[in-house]
């Protein structure tokens, strides 16, 4: 089969690989009908997580049709079922899964010792996202083996397009969780840093959850125009001071809720001098992430406000103003999305016409064009915000 394979920094190829095979009775194999490139795939493209190996298949936003089912998964799945695959692999039985904390499932990371060393305690297995999270082959491929398939799938009905359903795998529940964990209440002003695909979903989630004022922060005009389409007030940080503008929009008090949909790779620019130092340290492997957004959120957030972090961070960060955070009494909530916790509700909202996630797709391509689409997405060329791939 064909698959997008990681071979090194900035080196993704559409390779011919052997087909996946069922290994465990709980496994299933799906024929992929659609998949997508995620912003967090770019961290791997840039080799910022030192746990990828040449030959690893990329991708964690995938949907398709079940073509093979292991004996222990047959009670939940059958050939021909149409499924979206969450990027988190969950057993559904451990303490964390029972609490709904699926992204920290205790049993699905098959490289638990490595995960324990890196994180203190291993997190869930993830598709196509380094050997720290199991080294599972990803879904940017023609076929995908789904471990723990009886619990790691979202059955979806026929009659709704892949474009509307695919993002149940990641960015829609991720954006939703970013808004939910911010504890948005009617009357709140919510500021969202980053108008990439997750930021866009977060903005719409904040609107649906009743935020009075949603403020979107980015510097790319096409992303800001997409944010404005959902009713967000936009701030272009190339043109105005984020802190001054946020204070102006909140009567000098700052936003109630601040959401980081950027994560490890804040834009590097002279207007944000801390990012220059972070980038230099990152190049010298003295720091993993560029936490400009975190610093800005802590500074501008209203005292006793909530900081919600959904943008992916990778490791160590420097110069975090913990004194500001502590003295202002800020609440921090963060996690990789606990996808299945939200997908039943979100599928219903898609069916009900409350949200149509397909708005975010700006580019569609064949799987074989994947390598060039990675570069285009990274370079933000041609107005690229979200790439959908079809094998």
């Amino acid at each position: 089969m064909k698959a997008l394979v990681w071979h090194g920094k900035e080196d993704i190829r559409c390779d011919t690989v052997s087909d996946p095979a069922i290994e465990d009775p709980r496994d299933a194999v799906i024929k992929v009908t659609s998949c997508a490139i995620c912003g967090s795939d770019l961290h791997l493209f840039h080799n910022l997580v030192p746990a990828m190996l040449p030959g690893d298949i990329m991708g964690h936003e995938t949907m398709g049709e079940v073509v093979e089912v292991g004996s222990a998964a047959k009670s939940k799945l059958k050939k021909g079922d149409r499924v979206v695959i969450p990027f988190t692999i969950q057993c559904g039985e451990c303490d964390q899964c029972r609490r709904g904390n699926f992204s920290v499932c205790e049993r699905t990371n098959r490289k638990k010792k490595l995960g324990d060393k890196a994180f203190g305690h291993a997190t869930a297995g993830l598709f196509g996202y380094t050997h720290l999270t199991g080294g599972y082959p990803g879904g940017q491929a023609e076929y995908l083996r789904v471990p723990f398939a009886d619990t790691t799938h979202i059955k979806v009905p026929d009659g709704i397009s892949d474009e509307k359903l695919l993002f149940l795998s990641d960015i829609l529940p991720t954006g939703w969780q970013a808004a939910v964990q911010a504890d948005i209440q009617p009357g709140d002003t919510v500021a969202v840093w980053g108008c990439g695909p997750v930021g866009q979903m977060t903005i719409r989630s904040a609107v649906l959850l009743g935020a009075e004022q949603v403020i979107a922060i980015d510097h790319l005009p096409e992303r800001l125009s997409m944010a404005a389409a959902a009713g967000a007030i936009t701030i272009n940080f190339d043109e105005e001071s984020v802190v001054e503008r946020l204070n102006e929009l909140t009567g000098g008090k700052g936003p109630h809720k601040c959401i980081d949909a950027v994560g490890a790779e804040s834009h590097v620019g002279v207007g944000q001098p801390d990012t220059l130092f972070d980038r230099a340290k990152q190049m010298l492997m003295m720091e993993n992430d560029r936490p400009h957004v975190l610093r800005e959120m802590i500074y501008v957030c209203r005292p006793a406000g909530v900081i919600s972090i959904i943008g992916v961070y990778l490791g160590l960060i420097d110069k975090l103003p913990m004194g500001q955070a502590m003295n202002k009494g800020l609440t921090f909530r963060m996690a990789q999305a606990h996808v299945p916790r939200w997908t039943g509700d979100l599928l219903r909202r898609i069916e009900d016409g409350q949200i149509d996630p397909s708005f975010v797709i700006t580019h569609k391509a064949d799987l074989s064009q994947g390598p060039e689409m990675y570069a285009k997405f990274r370079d933000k060329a041609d107005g690229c915000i979200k790439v959908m791939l079809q094998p």
Partner: protein
Amino acid sequence: MLLTKLTGIARSEGDPRVIYKGPSSLTDADRLARALGWFSVGLGVVELVAAGRIARALGLEDKEGLIRAFGARELASAVPTLSVDKAPGLAARIGGDVLDLLTLSTALHRHNPKRSNAALATALVLGVTLLDLAAYAGVKAAHHRGSGSRRDYSGRTGLPRGAQASRGLARKDFKTPPDYRAEGTVAAALPAAAT
């Protein structure tokens, strides 16, 4: 392919293995930049550890310290050149090439017994400068935003009922889970508020 095959030991039996490699997302300019980055590392190390020998070979005995500083400069420019932000690294290399050529020009006078070595070094630096220029132009051409800023997505609401009508829509049937809530307020918990 050997490395890709070796990594097979980290995979399980049913995991797909690479059979044939396809074309890479790396452009020729990216590869050239990477090669120049590693060249910078090599040259930088040599200039740092063998500055005296280089100075004597070029007839620039009084510039040993400068050559060592150039070695440090080479290493510094290698870091961004080998990163994903290649253009600033390549620009730094081009600037460094100019400094190298200016320094070598001082060794090309007829009284320098090592003039031929200096001439050869100058020719080599000129060649590398051309490669740096080609890599810089190639990287800039391959990785630019193009017409992206002219795209307008202002019609893409993602909220079929419209932004205003959608505000708070989920509140009708969604309650923030208790683990994500700071229930109530201090004021509500005070005895005065209870009465």
